[in-house]
């Protein structure tokens, strides 16, 4: 007997009740899920648009800003928003718009790099801990729990104070804070899927265990991880700005939004509101966009929350 012969006879049977390709009866149509992409939700679109805008501004600031963000005295001190200085000037007469544009490089850059490092390292460790379990899991999980005992901001403050300011240090500290969360999340995701039939089937078709964990299981956990990444990014952006505000992060002259707020806080009482208001607005916009995106992503990836 040849294979095509089998095909003929079997395919003949198959056309009866079991093919969604045959003109489906309406009742069957409901039972078979269709692959139609849901239109992007509004929160997703807004979140994405705002973030793209921030990225564009950050890139633009590399080649052009209205004034030099670092040089004082481009105007007089404490000038309110005007045609020349759209968002006003600060105490030293620097242009606030230019500084906010340049600040996007720091706040967005630190956030993105720190979150990426945390995501990659945390997920790799979490996947290993979740898939292999046993001693590996215990060692990894316990190590991480120690760091989790400290609240994020407090930990960041302590470490930055200890190792000193600098962009690289802030990035490392921020990603360090994020790792435990990614680890716990990916560990739980992988654990819940580790004994699923498709994981066992993947093993049986010849995959090594690491291949099962990283090629088969991890991609199926991407949804919840991405959603969390976005929300975590909002948190990282806030803590970065907080460090700047406390004067712990970077050189106080750096056009970082948090330190700009700190520099302008005395103006709040005396009526020069624009000093702190606009950097604050920039932070709010960025964290808000990350939250919107994260919320939309978790809606999209959680079947229970999908409409």
């Amino acid at each position, binding site marked *: 007997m040849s294979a095509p012969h089998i095909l003929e006879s079997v395919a003949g049977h198959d056309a*009866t*009740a079991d093919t969604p390709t045959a003109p489906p*009866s*309406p*009742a*069957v*149509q*409901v*039972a078979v899920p269709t692959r139609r992409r849901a239109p992007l939700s509004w929160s997703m679109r807004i979140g994405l648009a705002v973030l793209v805008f921030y990225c564009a501004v950050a890139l633009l600031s590399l080649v052009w800003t209205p004034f030099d963000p670092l040089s004082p005295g481009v105007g007089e001190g404490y000038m309110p928003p005007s045609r020349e200085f759209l968002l006003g000037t600060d105490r030293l007469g620097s242009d606030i718009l230019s500084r906010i544009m340049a600040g996007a490089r720091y706040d967005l850059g630190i956030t993105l790099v720190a979150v990426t490092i945390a995501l990659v390292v945390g997920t790799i460790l979490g996947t290993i801990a979740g898939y292999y379990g046993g001693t590996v899991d215990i060692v990894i999980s316990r190590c991480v729990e120690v760091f989790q005992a400290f609240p994020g901001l407090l930990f960041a403050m302590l470490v930055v104070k200890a190792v000193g300011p600098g962009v690289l240090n802030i990035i490392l500290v921020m990603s360090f804070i994020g790792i435990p969360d990614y680890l716990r999340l990916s560990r739980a995701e992988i654990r819940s899927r580790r004994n699923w039939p498709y994981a066992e089937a993947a093993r049986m078709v010849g995959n090594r265990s690491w291949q099962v964990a990283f090629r088969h299981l991890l991609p199926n956990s991407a949804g919840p991880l991405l959603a969390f990444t976005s929300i975590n990014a909002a948190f990282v952006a806030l803590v970065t700005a907080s460090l700047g505000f406390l004067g712990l992060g970077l050189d106080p002259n750096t056009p970082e939004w948090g330190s700009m707020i700190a520099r302008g806080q005395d103006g709040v009482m005396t009526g020069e509101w624009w000093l702190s208001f606009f950097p604050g607005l920039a932070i709010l916009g960025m964290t808000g966009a990350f939250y919107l995106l994260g919320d939309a992503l978790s809606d999209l990836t959680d079947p229970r929350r999908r*409409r």
Partner: protein
Amino acid sequence: MSDVLLSVENFSGAFRAADGRLTPVLHDVNFALRTGAITAVVGETGSGKSLTALSILGIQPATFVRTSGRILFEGRDLLTLGATALRAIRGRRISMVFQDARAAMNPVFTVGQQLAEVFRLQHGGSRDAAMAKAIDALRRVSIPEPERRARQYPHEFSGGMAQRAMIAMAALICRPTLLILDEPTTGLDVTIQSEIMELIVELGRSAGLTACLITHDLGVVAETCDAVVVMNAGRVVETGTAEAIFTAPQHAYTRKLLAASLLVPA
């Protein structure tokens, strides 16, 4: 006919998608449940059998809309009744046994408490009297040591025992006129399954219960049911007495289903 307890007449319905489009799933469904009989509604996945049963109780999914027809119960159209009137009928007049009894019960109350609570809701009376009724109902569905079992939680029950308790609640505590059983033995082992079905038949006979058994298993139907409704893809393809359906099936789908159940050529 006077001996018809419930009739589904020209019932059609559809699912409404988020964008408002309707996908028809039930087409002109017609059948009647005779008083005192056990009627099986048989069909495969997507046949619409469960949807029809849920519609009788008014607990169909929110996205399901009726496009035509009515469901008459003791002369009243269930589909036009308001929430309050439906609630009065649900439980007291029509009750339902679900596939997964353990999931259908509240995990934080004991089985006895749940039965007693339902009894008091339906018939009133003191807490102690209701608990006595609950224990009595458990005894009548052959649960050993009913006093001890009544103090246990649903997760301490095996699947078969939980289904017995569910039947005790739906049939003996609620004392309905019509009992709907949605795949009551699916997922249970065959030895347990046959005992549950015997219990259902016995309760039906002794309590004069009208029962509607929703199932995909023709084997269960052959031994227990008086009448059969065969559904496929949202339509009723054949109705008849159980004997007629099994000995002289008319519709090609019925014949195919029978052959497939016995694993013989159609």
